[in-house]
């Protein structure tokens, strides 16, 4: 037996999602990304690449902004359509195609948002102060921004797939964000179980990618107003090495793939009787 193929259905759903997004004023996501990145960049950008704390905080804020923007893109995208999905699944829709089409749309949306975020960030943050690992610090930081926004949007798809209603999804969203912020290892030193959990967060790997490109370990810490300078404690995650950067990127991609698979399974389980 051969229904319409996965590729055909993905194409159908992508066109539909794109068409509807245009009608639902998808540009508001761009405005949203521009406003957030402007606020973040103006506040943190001035001191970036001056010392460890300001650079670390700047990247942490940028990472948080990327994750926030990404999740916000998609947090309601699936849960608002559960009844439609149930009806269409009965008609022969492949859930994997539907989720993949949503991911494709998010990939496109996130690309534009990432250009906006990074473009605005570049005005206030001098990324040229970093030395490159693979291509140039601009490209490497842009790729990190894009992977973070995209990964977070797929995380949003997962939360949305698991949630029964938009209200539930919006209730869960702050918890997901808090976990991402706490587990990145910037605010608190993580040990034991918490450290283990941090390996499945986008924020940890986002910080690792930014930190390794910027060679964060080479920065000094300025203590209060004393002008005393001490060398930052070495953090392996920020090693200025290509392998460190590639591992960080691949980890974000791995988490993203995992979230996509969970989304598909969640919808299949929800609709197993349909």
């Amino acid at each position, binding site marked *: 037996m051969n229904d319409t193929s996965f590729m055909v259905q993905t194409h*159908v759903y992508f066109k539909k999602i794109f068409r509807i997004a245009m009608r639902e004023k998808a540009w508001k996501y761009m405005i949203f990304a521009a406003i957030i990145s402007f606020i973040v960049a103006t506040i943190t950008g001035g001191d970036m690449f001056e010392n460890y704390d300001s650079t670390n905080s700047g990247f942490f804020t940028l990472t948080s902004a990327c994750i926030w923007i990404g999740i916000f893109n998609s947090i309601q995208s699936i849960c608002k359509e559960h009844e439609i999905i149930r009806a269409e699944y009965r008609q022969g829709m492949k859930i994997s195609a539907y989720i993949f089409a949503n991911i494709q749309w998010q990939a496109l949306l996130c690309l534009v948002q990432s250009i906006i975020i990074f473009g605005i960030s570049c005005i206030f943050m001098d990324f040229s102060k970093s030395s490159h690992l693979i291509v140039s610090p601009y490209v490497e930081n842009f790729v990190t921004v894009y992977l973070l926004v995209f990964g977070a949007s797929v995380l949003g798809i997962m939360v949305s797939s698991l949630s029964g209603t938009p209200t539930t999804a919006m209730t869960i969203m702050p918890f997901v964000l808090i976990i991402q912020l706490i587990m990145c290892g910037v605010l608190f030193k993580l040990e034991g179980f918490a450290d283990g959990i941090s390996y499945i967060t986008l924020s940890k790997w986002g910080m690792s990618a930014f930190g390794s490109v910027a060679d964060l370990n080479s920065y000094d810490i300025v203590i209060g107003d004393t002008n005393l300078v001490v060398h930052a404690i070495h953090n392996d995650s920020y090693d200025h090495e290509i392998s460190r950067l590639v591992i960080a990127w691949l980890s974000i991609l791995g988490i993203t793939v995992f979230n996509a698979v969970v989304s598909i399974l969640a919808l299949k389980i929800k609709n197993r009787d349909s």
Partner: protein
Amino acid sequence: MEMEKTVGYIPNQLHNSTLLIIDKRCKPTVVPLKGSMTFGRRHSGKLCDILVDSVIVGRNHGEFIYDNNQQAYYYIDNNSLNGTYINGYKLEKYNDRGSKAFRLNDGDILRVDRTTLNQPHPEAVIMIYCTTIRYDEKWKVTDTSRYANITIGRGSNNVIRLTDMTASRNHAVLRRNNSAWFVFDNGSVNGVSLNGREINGNAAVFDHDVIKVGNTTLILCGKLLVYNNPGESTGNLSVRIQKKTVDFGRKTLLRDINFNVESGDFVLILGGSGAGKTTLVKAILGDGKADGRIILNGQDLYTNFKSMKSQIGLVPQFLTLRVNDTVKNTLIDIADIKLDRKNYSKQEKLQRIDEIMNKVGIKNLENHLIAQLSGGQKKKVSVAYQLVGFQKVFICDEPDSGLDAASRTQQMEILKEISQNDKIVMVISHEPDDAVDADTGRSLFTKVVVLAKSSRDGAGHLAFYGGVEQAKEHFGVSKLQDIMKEINPPFEGGKGKADYYIDKYYSLGR
């Protein structure tokens, strides 16, 4: 238990069950099964009910046994010398009486043959148990020796051209490789099965193998290919629900719901709140499976859910379409999902969508966003959306809710017209008396299902199933709507006679 006896109201499975027999002459014979019947070789002594001329079939080879309780046929091999194979597996001796009983399902293939099934005995006999093949079905024969490839499908270029709508345009091809035959599924919508099992791409076909292409049965018999061409199936739907429970069996929502709907029927489902209308609809859809069986064209929905679910469409009470898309795009997208490119060109899909929009009366709205439509127009789009596929059954949950009287009538007329195209349309409605023929003033419905909540067990029971006029007579009312007053409890403004009508219906022997 008395309630179980009422099952007899349904036209029994045995009325529909037939046995398609292919013997050494390769001539198909369809034998109607009428209760328990014996099967054996024609000889001079005491004869069995079903006779075949074959030296390898015993004089009293086996028995078809009808179980009234299960309403199903079983087969037992009477420890015959050559035994009986069912779907390729030999029935083993169980005791001195014979083999274990094998419960027969539509399409099961019984075969009396030698052990090497791929090289059948010249006098081998095939019997196919069917609930979908009619007694008077016409059978055709094609001489395979004339072809290297035998194409099968609805397209005019096929060697075997089918009119069955479940067959794809270029559904399958039988390809000869030296002396062997192989069947290839051309990526068909409904697949190809060989000896009761769906094939994956292609499979070798041996003499006496049975191929199913949609509703069409093909049997390779020596050099001949024997097949029927049932056309668009004139199906029926049998609902046999013993009970439907929730809360881990603690609460029973439905009990003893048994009725049989023929294609072309336009069925009204009536019932007060809590009588189980939605539960019944879900059970028929397979969404909330009940204890029992839903049989569509002889196939059990619950056991074949994945392949059959798309044959039953639901027009829900509330819109389940994306409102920020246009009517036409919505229909095109579902056509792209339901109808694969190999069998339906873009032009054919657009043509079908145009036909549906014209039929449902929304052609002028094709470029409107669904969000811009009125409630009635949205309902029409929902109906059109379901029509894009080739569903056999449509269940409409209050398709007339929120509409004015004229729109309600128009909506029902559309649904009636759909049912007249050999479909089954079942409707839950609270305004059934608006569904009348403008010329004759008669109800558009052909059947009425009345569910009533019994005060004895709190479950929904069948209080009536039959024609519209009989329903009015049964409840002593002049309007269908008044049936609700009879069965609803007093606190809902009714007369609280649900138990009385349930008993009355059962007392009729139904």
